């Protein structure tokens, strides 16, 4: 995958296929609505009170579910190109794609167990390693888009010498 200019992406046929496959899978999970992935994408709103949290989540997450489904639908439409053809992104589509890429990373993290702070990549099974590699690929692409829409967001990489402190 590469960028040819600010709004045009060049993806291989395999990359388009993979992104579409992951997006369709996420769409299914969202429509089903009961998976741990859904729990991660629609987390708690109020930690201190379960009843207040339930009410707040109902209020906040109904709209958010509609937004996520619409975003996924638009990105799937954008990715509906002939093999080898560039993917043109217009208006807010780069941001929609970045949001979907992040949702896909979160989804893969839950499915592989990497969403847990205690998770260790070295202990993943083959499926988990495959998902971790996909997460890295999606992260790389997220930062390519970030570099286009807000290069300042990556500035700290050059200035922070010790991020693990």
């Amino acid at each position, binding site marked *: 995958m590469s960028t040819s200019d600010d709004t045009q992406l060049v993806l291989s046929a395999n990359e388009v296929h993979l992104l579409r496959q992951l997006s369709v899978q996420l769409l299914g999970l969202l429509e089903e609505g009961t998976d741990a992935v859904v729990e991660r994408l629609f987390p708690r709103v109020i*930690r201190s009170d379960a009843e207040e949290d339930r009410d*707040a989540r109902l*209020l906040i997450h109904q709209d*958010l579910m509609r937004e996520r489904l619409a975003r996924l639908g638009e990105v799937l439409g954008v990715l509906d190109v002939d093999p080898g053809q560039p993917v043109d992104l217009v208006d807010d589509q780069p941001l929609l794609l970045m*949001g979907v890429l992040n949702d896909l990373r979160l989804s893969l993290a839950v499915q592989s167990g990497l969403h847990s702070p205690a998770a260790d990549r070295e202990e993943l099974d083959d499926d988990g390693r495959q998902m971790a590699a996909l997460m890295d690929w999606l992260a790389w692409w997220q930062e390519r888009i*970030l570099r286009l829409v807000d290069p300042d967001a990556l500035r700290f990489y050059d200035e922070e010498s010790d991020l693990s402190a």
Partner: protein
Amino acid sequence: MSSSAPTAAPVVDPDVTTGDETTTEGPWDVIVWDDPVNLMSYVVWVFRKIFGFTEPVARKLMLDVHRKGKALVASEPREQAELYVQQLHGHGLQATMERSR
């Protein structure tokens, strides 16, 4: 956040403005919690996009989340706090709200 292990400690950011004084309920704090998946650069961008923070402020808050486990990113009347949490959840961040103390 992605790229190193999270830590945990409370944090109060002096840069964050307080909410509307006319509300009877008082302001609610919006808190973003660390997670091992979201990219640091992405979190900086989300803070800049949603709150309009300058890059240094967004970076400081992102690093607070990363190093201390959480950061207070806004203190606002309930309706605005809910909107912020909705936007943060929409971007995949783990955000909660609680009554300001």
